[in-house]
């Protein structure tokens, strides 16, 4: 049986933990709203871009298509671009992303492909390093900016495209969480490079569209932008997922701390009463002996 003082200290420490988780939960709730708004605001651009892509890609095909669309012709070397968060305290989010990435890696390796990792965000480093220490190509640090925006997506895309042009990999996959709700963030694996041919007919049946300079030139200009937009979208989804997961995790933590405090308080009161009773018995026994 723990002493009274020990119990009291324990209650105090759980209380301050609860204060921290409560604060983090409220911060996450506030940030979640902003992150969700940002993710929504980015949607029109992505939609229009893929619409245009679809109509263009159907016109330019075969050997004249840019490298980014038709790929290098081989699919031996795969690059997994894994988007993790920079901060913890967000439940199982990062563990789930890493799990999805590792599953994809295992699947590719089982098929006899080479796999390398390109990590974005701090929290994926340690767990992936544990299994694939020699396969990590690069860490891209996003922790020094408050809210990763288009500049970061731009920098990542430039870097990836440069590596692709140098022939360092054939296929790139993007692993990132998709924000469904504060309770569910699904890790997803999407092919990033070569750009998958967009489905749908585009503007189809439209009047003849005039292109300036030409279809191919525009497509060439468009594809890197598309990659950038994908990455930007992934960063925004990550942001929203992180806050959502964090909010839920911290809500649970706060509730658990509350339960623990109740339990400890009962225990504390019981032992206090026991101590008082013992004291009384001693006094009474002493008085009777006189």
């Amino acid at each position, binding site marked *: 049986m723990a002493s009274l003082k020990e119990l009291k200290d324990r209650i105090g420490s759980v209380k301050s933990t609860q204060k921290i988780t409560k604060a983090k939960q409220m911060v996450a709730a506030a940030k979640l709203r902003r992150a969700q708004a940002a993710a929504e605001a980015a949607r029109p651009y992505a939609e229009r871009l893929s619409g245009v892509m679809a109509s263009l890609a159907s016109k330019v095909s075969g050997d004249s298509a840019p490298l980014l669309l038709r790929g290098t012709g081989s699919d031996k070397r795969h690059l997994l671009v894994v988007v993790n968060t920079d901060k913890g305290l967000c439940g199982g989010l990062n563990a789930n992303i890493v799990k999805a990435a590792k599953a994809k890696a295992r699947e590719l390796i089982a098929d006899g492909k080479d796999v390398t990792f390109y990590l974005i965000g701090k929290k994926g480093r340690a767990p992936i390093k544990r299994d694939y220490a020699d396969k990590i190509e690069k860490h891209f640090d996003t922790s020094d900016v408050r809210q990763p925006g288009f500049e970061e997506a731009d920098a990542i895309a430039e870097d990836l495209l440069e590596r692709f042009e140098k022939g360092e990999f054939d296929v790139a996959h993007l692993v990132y969480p998709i924000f469904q709700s504060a309770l569910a963030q699904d890790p997803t694996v999407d092919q990033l490079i070569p750009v998958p041919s967009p489905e749908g007919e585009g503007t189809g049946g*439209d009047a003849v569209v005039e292109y300036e300079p030409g279809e191919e030139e525009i497509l060439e200009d468009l594809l890197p932008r598309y990659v950038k937009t994908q990455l930007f979208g992934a960063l925004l989804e990550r942001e929203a997922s992180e806050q959502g997961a964090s909010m839920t995790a911290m809500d649970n933590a706060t509730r658990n701390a509350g339960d623990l405090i109740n339990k400890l308080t009962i225990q504390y009161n019981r032992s206090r009463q026991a101590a008082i009773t013992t004291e009384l018995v001693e006094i009474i026994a002493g008085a009777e002996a006189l």
Partner: protein
Amino acid sequence: MALHFELVTPAKLVRSEDVHMVVVPGAEGEFGVLEGHAPFMSTIRDGAVQVYKTEGAAPETIEVRGGFAEVGEEGLTVLAEHVEG
């Protein structure tokens, strides 16, 4: 007669309004778009998009960087990577 004009960046929808005419800095020269323009697509160079709210009005200029413009049935859409101000 009005041209539906949309200016979109990755971060948000900057403009969505009906205007009289828009002059876009295309990669191969500026071009003006009025209502009923034929379907057209062009990359744009860094420069100013001039928006004429009404005929003869002083144009409002918006600096854009990187992107392309698309004219379709529903109007003009400019997708730009950056918009100043």
